[in-house]
């Protein structure tokens, strides 16, 4: 049986006016890099906070290393590094004092503090007060803080938001390095490419529900779907669709004068030839290769029903 290091069961959270999380089951394997993907407001942060027992679930359970967080929260939180979204720390403490404070809470070796500050490039500002730092600098100290004590789980809520691309890249390398040393990395993002780049497993959350949880590879494959040819017709659209249907292209989507024809990549010319033979004017055409980002946007868009079948 697979050993899950983080597991949530039917996790649900109702706030006064919002039903933020509606029964989420997550299964994070030990040693994984797990992407928690979804648009803003999908319930990612609330779910993460419930995993850490910061927000109390309305119903459902969380297990970390098999420990029920509701029953033994303090024990379950041992060895976890966490970075919340857009956290600020204590204005009057220096970067080093902040690190020292968290090292003490984690009962970790304080010698690490300087090493980790250097790792995120903040060693130059070691003795400056946190209140004088830019958002990005605070975020970097936040990352360094999460790495204290060589955690066995890293939980990061939108870790790269607010960072310039260079540091976003550097953080990803740090996460990969940590993962290489056996740390399970769980991070949320609303950016597909970020998750695609790093993760072995992914869960997509939309409107408080997990739409899919699978390996990144299978999710990409499933979402890519088939390529399509998008043609804009000058004349009668109905006539054009009939010609296409009779020609063997049954999968069509019509938007006004535009027809999306789902094809195999070698069929592009065939479609255009068919239309030309029927004397139908094609104003414009382009092909779409089943771009993952588009598929994802469609997936989490207003029209897609959560939990619905995936196309393709």
């Amino acid at each position, binding site marked *: 049986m697979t050993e899950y290091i983080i597991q949530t069961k039917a996790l649900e959270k109702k706030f006064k006016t919002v039903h933020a999380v509606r029964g989420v089951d997550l299964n994070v394997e030990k040693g994984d890099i797990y992407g928690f993907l979804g648009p803003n407001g999908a319930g990612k942060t609330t779910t993460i906070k419930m995993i850490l027992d910061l927000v109390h679930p309305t119903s459902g359970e969380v297990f970390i290393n098999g420990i029920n967080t509701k029953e033994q929260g303090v024990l379950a939180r041992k060895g976890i590094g966490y970075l*919340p979204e857009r956290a*600020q720390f204590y204005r*009057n*403490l220096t970067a080093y004092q902040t690190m020292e404070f*968290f090292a003490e*809470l*984690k009962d970790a070796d304080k010698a690490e503090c300087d090493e980790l500050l250097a790792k995120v490039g903040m060693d130059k500002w070691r003795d400056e007060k946190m209140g004088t730092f830019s958002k990005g600098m605070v975020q970097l100290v936040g990352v360094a803080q999460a790495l204290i004590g060589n955690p066995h789980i890293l939980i990061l809520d939108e870790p790269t938001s607010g960072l310039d691309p260079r540091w976003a890249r550097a953080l990803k390398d740090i996460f990969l390095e940590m993962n290489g040393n056996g740390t399970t990395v769980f991070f949320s993002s609303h950016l597909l490419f970020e998750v695609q780049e790093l993760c072995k497993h992914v869960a997509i959350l939309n409107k408080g529900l997990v739409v899919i949880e699978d390996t990144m590879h299978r999710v990409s494959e499933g979402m890519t779907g088939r390529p399509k040819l998008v043609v804009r017709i000058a004349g009668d659209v109905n006539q054009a669709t009939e010609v296409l249907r009779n020609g063997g292209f049954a999968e069509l989507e019509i938007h006004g004068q535009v027809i999306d024809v789902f094809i195999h990549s070698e069929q592009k010319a065939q479609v255009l030839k068919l239309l030309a033979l029927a004397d139908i004017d094609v104003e414009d055409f382009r092909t779409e290769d089943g771009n993952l980002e588009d598929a994802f946007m469609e997936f989490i868009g207003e029209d897609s029903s959560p939990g619905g079948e995936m196309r393709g």
Partner: protein
Amino acid sequence: MRSWNSLVKIVPLEVRCVVNFNNIKTIAKKEFMDNLRNKWIIVLTLIFILLTLAMSFVQGGGGMSSADITVIGILAIASMLVPIIAIMLGYNTITGEAESGSLLVVLSNPIDRFEVLIGKFVGLGSVLSTSIVLGFGLAGIVIMAEDSSSAVGYGIFMVLTILLGLIYLSLSMCFSALLKRSVASLGAGIGLFFWGMIIGTILMGVYLATTPGSSLESMMTNMPDWIITVMVLISPADMYQTSAMLGFDMTSLGASGISFSIPGHITLARLMIVYAVWIIVPLVIGFYSLKKRDI
């Protein structure tokens, strides 16, 4: 910190297994370092020191004994400034940290929320005590140089002032744990300050307005014991002033025809129980609120 470790050893082992004292120490130390450099606290402490020093030089004039005048002066300053310092320290301790996100990081560690609250109370209480000791200390040196006979009374006075501060700290931390937003807990802190300042006066006003009497002076002088008792119970500021008078063995005050005496059943020892209730109850309420809270 050897002193801390020996202090912890007093606590029974069973309690030490449930409560991690190192966590409390870590939180307390953080609060102390962070707030000792808080601009507002520094400014208020300086004002406090200047006013008490000024008051200690005033002694020597008037009919009352010199120490009494100083005490009454410092009493007035402390019962105004100490609640402000305590509320400034306490009002944002949960709401502010929840809003900034730092509380999220703290609570993601292997720490119980109880330890966070107690650690904060100890740390902020230490900042408050430092401020009060500085405020009293310099004036104390000036007074003792003139007349060292009231040293014990002055010491008790300082401890009572720290306890008054702890009441306001406990109350404002309780509001901070109960309320969602920083603005709301600041509002509650301001409300608390004014409530402490005027509740006794309101009670006395109601009494004066509803009781037939010949003159203000006689009514004040003959104020029934129960009014004073209620005032001492519901207003920490009045309790503080009453207990300070008892600390200096003053059981009655007289000025411009009005004399005011403390009922015999109000003793310093009994008032200590009231102090303890005022400090402990808000912390307990604050703890349950923090425990249930979604951060």
